């Protein structure tokens, strides 16, 4: 990330950065409060309450929580299975908290993977996610078609020995666009998604369709185009026999000719990035 790119869109990016940090703070606070016996519903409610108390009024989507083999989306067939259940957390179990709050008109969409106690397999998955963060950034800067990048991520996961679990998301997306959201006094949500944000995504889809691009980054033909400038919430998700891990954060794509400025991660001071850096220092 260069200073210029930051400055050009500084005020706006600052807003996104702020809400992304807030969301990760929430994830860390809730993760610290998770104990054996807590259910997914309770974990989701804890996230909602935490963010509400800090001024979040609208959502891109309501917070999710997945425990145990649900982190790998084992047996997921219908979208309803994404919603929190009464699954209880046990020692050694992996969990994922996923939330997308809207704060002061800016959206974030984050995914936080953790584990209750020791789980070497989960550590391995988390460590292996780093390669994906690098790969995605590199190939976006090369302006490769999104579908190709998707396939490369897929191949890397297979080589690592894992299954690609973002394929289980709606439309198999690995990422979707996020944007500013108009602040309304009344902002209802349907099926867990905020209507204001859905409206934005829908209008992107309509405009994009005319110009030959899509706000969804998927393995399908409609994603066969170079990265579109804007903010993308990217969420590579690894699954391995009942254990899953992902991160989700915002990638900024600009139309700059300078490769470094053409794409960069919104923030490099996030829990998973810090964790990788600490591991390197320890090694």
């Amino acid at each position, binding site marked *: 990330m260069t200073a210029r790119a930051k400055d050009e869109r500084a005020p706006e990016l600052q807003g996104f950065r702020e809400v992304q940090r807030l969301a990760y703070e929430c994830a860390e606070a809730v993760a610290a409060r998770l104990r054996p016996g807590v259910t997914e519903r309770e974990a989701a409610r804890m996230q909602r309450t935490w963010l509400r108390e800090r001024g979040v009024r609208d959502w891109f989507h309501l917070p999710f929580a997945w425990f145990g083999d649900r982190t790998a989306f084992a047996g997921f067939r219908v979208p309803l299975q994404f919603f929190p259940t009464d699954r209880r957390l046990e020692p050694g179990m992996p969990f994922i908290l996923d939330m997308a709050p809207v704060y002061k008109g800016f959206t974030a969409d984050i995914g936080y993977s953790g584990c209750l106690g020791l789980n*070497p*397999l989960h550590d*391995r998955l988390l460590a292996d996610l780093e390669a994906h963060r690098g790969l995605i950034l590199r190939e976006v800067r090369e302006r490769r078609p999104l579908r190709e990048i998707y396939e490369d991520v897929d191949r890397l996961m*297979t*080589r*690592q*020995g894992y299954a690609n679990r973002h394929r289980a998301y709606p439309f198999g997306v690995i990422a979707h666009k996020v944007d500013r959201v108009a602040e309304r006094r009344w902002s209802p949500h349907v099926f867990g998604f905020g209507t204001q944000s859905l409206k934005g995504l829908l209008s992107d889809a309509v405009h994009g369709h005319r110009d030959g691009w899509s706000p969804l980054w998927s393995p399908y033909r409609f994603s066969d185009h170079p990265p579109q400038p804007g903010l993308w919430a990217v969420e590579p998700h690894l699954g*391995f*026999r009942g254990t899953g891990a992902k991160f989700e954060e915002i990638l900024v794509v600009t139309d700059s000719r300078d490769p470094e400025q053409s794409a960069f991660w919104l923030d490099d001071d996030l829990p998973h990035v810090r964790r990788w850096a600490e591991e390197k220092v320890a090694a």
Partner: protein
Amino acid sequence: MNLPGARERRVATGGIDLCVVELGDATRPTIVLVHGYPDSKEVWTQVARQLAEQWHVVLYDVRGHGRSTAPVPLRGGFTLEKLTDDFLAVADAVSPDRPVHLVGHDWGSVQSWEFATVSRTEGRIASFTSMSGPSLDHFGHWIKQRMSRPTPRRVGQLLGQGAKSWYVYMLHTPVLPELAWRGPLGKRWPRILERLEKVPRGDYPTPSLPDDAAHGAWLYRDNVRSRLRRPRADAFAHVPVQLITPTGDIFLSEQLYDGLDSWVPQLTRRSLPAKHWVPRTRPDQLASWIDEFAAANESALEGGLPVQDTVPRGAYADRFGGQLVLVTGAAGGIGRATAFAFAEAGARVVAVDRDAEGASRTAELARLIGAPAAWAETVDVSDEQAMEKLAEKVAAEYGIVDVLVNNAGIGLSGSFLETTAEEWRSVLDVNLWGVIHGCRLFGKQMADRGQGGHIVNTASAAAYQPSRALPAYSTSKAAVLMLSECLRAELAEKSIGVSAICPGIVNTNITSTTRFAGTDAAEEQRLRKRTSTLYGKRNYPPEKVAEAILRAVVRNQAVVPVTPESHAVRFLSRLSPGVLRGIARLKPPL
């Protein structure tokens, strides 16, 4: 007794003189091995020799057997109470201030159940490994439950076990058993065992067999009727128990242990595809399970912790725990999924592939999901010398392979006339010669060891589906199928099973490396992409093939079609091969 370093001593108990033999370092924790009927302590020779490397191993002749003296009179001298006295006397003599790990086979296990469930032995036993011998009390309750609430299944179980227990009734007749054992039966017994049970000769049975068997009849007469009629209601085990069930036991049915969990709070189950005399026919496997179980309990004792569940959670963990499994082509697809499935079942895994990075990745993840150990080896299976070196290295460093999965294979598509000799050679080298090398080298090691094993060869639905698009590939796979069936016939007498797996269209990356004969690079790339997409759309996961492989080993299946299309083609190939020949003429939609 043919054991170097064995120290013999006599232990006196209630007018009886027991012959006790010790092996290994006496300062280490003790394992006591108790023999069955009609055996003497020599039945344990091989197991004891292996355990003695790590443990203080103690064997003794049960009263009236081998070199121990017999009670006078015999009647009433073999009650479980008296046998418990004997055990306590031995335990006090060999390990006065430390509880012992107890192992029993057949009647040794029957009496050990008594030791493990009565209160006066509490604190003297650290763990108990039972094989082929139920507790008479549990057995009594088992019968009562089935008699009091008969359902067709329960009646079936009763009749089945009733038929298997024929010798128990025979032994209750007076005098006749003694006459038979001291006469013709005693003479022929070694031959009978060799033929029916494939028990290898050695120092067993000992010349004392006729006397042992005649005395041992009183084990049955003194205990069976009284215990089955009035089983103890409090026969709960006060130690962790490992139950090893030989699946081919002709005297005891597996259902006998169905409700055992209610009697044993900490139960570890193992199963072994073998007949009754496992201490003679499967000493390596027994020694490794006993060692693992006793060690887990020992460290729990020392750490003051509750004993952890020693068996992993995967499917068939009771069967594959601690076994050595070698998988070729383990860097991806079916091979990798198979290695993982075995790892989850607690097997030690050798992941072989010519892709070093992929193989080591498989080994690393296998360790993370439950394999006690996993290694990666980089070998091209078509390279005879490399395979020979691998076989030597595996045998020397990891041991004899229990399950071999010859899975490595490459794809080749294109018409016969366009396939070059070089392409033919490369396909046959990997797909057929790779399997031949694997079976030849590792199969020989298995056969030489003489303790059973299993070989799985990955063929393909193409093995019985002719096609104008895959002549070389189908030929190689058909050869693998036939090879497997021939080998199965040959190795049956060695208790080594051979299975051919015919997966069908499975979503692996074989398509991305498949050669397409008679095409240029660009066209080949297009075809690869196209087939990969087709295979991806079919989306049959390699994990399901891995499941089928484990099941095939457990059930010793000969030919296993996996996907529905593979089943359909196999069915048609037998019902109406002409239809398949018609399909073979169709041009593939590429």
